[in-house]
């Protein structure tokens, strides 16, 4: 597989970050960074990462299925993650979640027909003091109200 020069540089750094013979350590970060570029983790990426870190594709598959951020299926261009864990719940994170489902017309781990948005009800994302919190891809949004979420989604839709 060929990747962008930036991703290849990252891979090269990762593969030399661990003690000799411990290249397997690079596997999880490699999958995550590659997923950012490809939008998902296809079979050929599993095989490629396996080859580069010196394990079997099955060993990669076994590991990636454990981690909630690693996806075999494509997400939307904007992956909207809404936290409803306890600190967000106490500040109406659950209502925000229901609002987002209605607004986008999709549910948990679903993607809109145009592929622009996907939605996920996530566990604590570490923004508890600024709840309720939302992450769109890797960007944090704090003190989110249904109105603020509408504005955010509308502005992302325009950016397409």
């Amino acid at each position, binding site marked *: 597989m060929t990747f962008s020069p930036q991703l290849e540089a990252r891979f090269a750094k990762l593969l030399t970050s661990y003690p000799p013979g411990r290249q397997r350590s690079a596997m999880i970060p490699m999958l995550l960074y590659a997923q950012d570029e490809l939008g998902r983790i296809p079979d050929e990426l599993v095989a490629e990462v396996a080859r580069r870190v010196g394990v079997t594709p099955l060993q990669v598959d076994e590991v990636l299925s454990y981690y909630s951020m690693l996806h075999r299926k494509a997400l939307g261009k904007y992956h909207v993650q809404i936290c409803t864990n306890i600190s967000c719940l106490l500040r109406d994170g659950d209502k925000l979640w229901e609002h987002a489902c209605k607004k986008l017309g999709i549910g948990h781990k679903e993607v809109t027909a145009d592929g622009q948005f996907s939605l996920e009800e996530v566990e604590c994302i570490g923004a508890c*003091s600024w709840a309720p919190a939302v992450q769109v891809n890797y960007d944090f949004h704090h003190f989110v109200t249904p109105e603020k979420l509408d504005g955010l989604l509308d502005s992302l839709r325009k950016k397409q």
Partner: protein
Amino acid sequence: MLYNEPSPLETKVLSRRFGIPNSASLNTYLAFDGYQGFQKAARMKPDEIIAEVKASNLRGRGGAGFPTGMKWSFVPRTSPKPKYIVVNADESEPGTCKDRVLIENDPHQLIEGVLIAGLAVDSHTGYIYIRGEYRYLIEVMDKAIAEAYANGWLGKNIQGTGFDFDLYTHSGAGAYECGEESALLESLEGKRGIPRIRPPFPAVAGAFQCPTVLNNVETFCAVPAILRDGGAAFAALGIPKSGGTKMTCLTGHINKPGVYELKLGFPVKQMIEEVGGGIRNGKKMKAFIPGGSSCPVLTAAEVEGATMDYDSMAQRKSMLGSGGVIVMDEDTCMVKAALRIMRFYAHESCGWCIPCREGTTWLKKILQRFHDGQGTRNDINLIGDISKNMLGRTFCPLGDAAAMPTISIVEKFRHEFEDHLNGKPCPYEHASHMVTV
């Protein structure tokens, strides 16, 4: 940047550079006492460094509260194996968002803490395991590390001391369990985040089966000040057996939620009323969680006279934990709170131990049934029984973390479960609906 206004009641040690322009840069760090602790430590013997950390009464800030100096002393320094320093930046305990601000605003403080730990245990390599969701912090950290290398604060012969140290960031990919130290080490090795049986402890066989110091971000961040100003000065900020300050995250039904650095032993009442601006909408407090959702829940009456430190919380059969304070007002449905907390643990249980995997799943189902008004009186006891059967019967503390808040909620708020019996709608919320992950 800072996401909330600081409070005048804070004692700023770890957060002293927060708010200064370019606080994450090396120049700012150096201009405000940066790397002085390292300079001092580089002239000390390893045992003297560990003695200074012991004198500070610093205890692990990730949640377990284990004395840091003692943990470091367990590392066999004379072992022929390489030793590793691993930073736990997998912050994911519900209610906790302090490591985020520490890394974002002052990454060099963390680097300095790691370097001092390296000197103390003769380690020359470190890894900062950062949860995948904190991608921007990996970038902040990588930038600070590159700056440190470029200016001789990492790499070979650091500042002419003859000490070599290499530091790397490592991204997680979404798993609460990887915040548990042995699961984190498995994940660092490119495996599923499943806990290891102990002993051996990480101090003896940690990363890559080598001796390892593994601490939380905040713990390492406290170390530069301890070396710079002395362990006794840090200890004096707190109370006996609980030295220094704690990054405290106020969350929930509070007027001024935020992350505040408070002296250990800070009165809970003053923290809620003055630092946090009181309970939102003039309501009364019903329940209080001192340090993340894994801690037993306390009632408003129980926290009367309590202080934020390890002993005061232990006396009340709870824990200081991670410093993630969760405040719930009088309108909170405790059944719903218990359910949401249990849904989290059921989702995050790694599945390795049966009591945790099955226990959290069944508790989630029973609590869901209860909150939907389909519970029976017998279920109330069943929730307590299942929880107690998980306690102490799992490889790692996740099972305990799920059981402890649940047991406390059932014991202390039993009447609220009874109020949900016989198909009655939730008395605190009508038409409540919870989506199941």
